C-alpha cells in the first residue's frame, strides 16, 4: 500500500499518496527516507507516523499490507 499524506506534509510532498520503497521495513527507516526525499519535512514541529490508523513508535515494523500515514502536527478543534 502507499503512504498517505495529510496537512502540511501533503503540501510539502505535493501529493496525497507516495509509493513506499520496498526496502523500508520500520517507522524509523520510513522517517529517514521521507526526510531525505523531502528535506522541508524537517521544518514541521513534529511528524508522527501512523500504522493501521494508530500512532506508531520508531521501532514499529511496517509490512506491505499495512496502511501507513504521515501525520504532521494536528490542528483540529
Amino acid at each position, binding site marked *: 500500500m502507499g503512504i498517505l499524506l495529510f496537512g502540511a506534509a501533503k503540501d510539502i510532498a505535493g501529493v496525497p499518496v507516495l509509493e513506499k520503497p520496498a526496502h523500508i521495513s520500520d517507522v524509523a527507516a520510513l522517517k529517514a527516507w521521507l526526510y531525505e526525499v523531502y528535506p522541508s519535512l524537517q521544518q514541521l514541529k513534529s511528524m508522527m507516523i*501512523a500504522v493501521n*490508523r494508530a500512532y506508531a513508535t520508531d521501532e514499529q515494523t511496517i509490512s506491505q499490507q499495512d496502511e501507513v500515514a504521515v*501525520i504532521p502536527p*494536528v*490542528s483540529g478543534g
Partner: protein
Amino acid sequence: MEILINIKETITVQEALDFIQSPECGGEVIFAGTVRNHTKQREVLKLFYECYEAMAISEMQKIAVKVQEKWAIQKLVMLHAVGDKYPGDLAVVIAVASAHRGIAFDACEYVIDLLKETVPIWKKEFFADGEIV
C-alpha cells in the same frame, strides 16, 4: 456510556443536545468551538478542515474509552466539521451528560483538550492578506 461520534461537512449543537437528553442526567455540558475571524490580530476569511477520517474516528473512540475509565458519564458526543468553514461556523461540538454537573464539566474539558492533541484533523487558515497557513 452511550457515544455519538461523527465527522461531516455540517454539524449542529441541536443534534448533540438531542443525543444527550436523558431523564437520568441532571448535568449536560456542551462545548461549541466556532471559527474566529482573526488569529493574532490578522483577519481570517475562512478555515479549511481536512481529516484522516478512519484514524480520526478511531482516536475519538480512544478518547471515549478514557472518559469511561475516569468518570461516570452517561452520554458523550464528539462532532467535528470538515471542509470550508467561515467565521461563526461551528467546527467542533463536545457534549457530555451525567447525573451531576461537576464531572460533566471536567469530562467535557478533557475531551476537547485531548481531541485537539491527538485526533488527526488539520486546519488551513486563509487570511485576508492572501496568506494561507
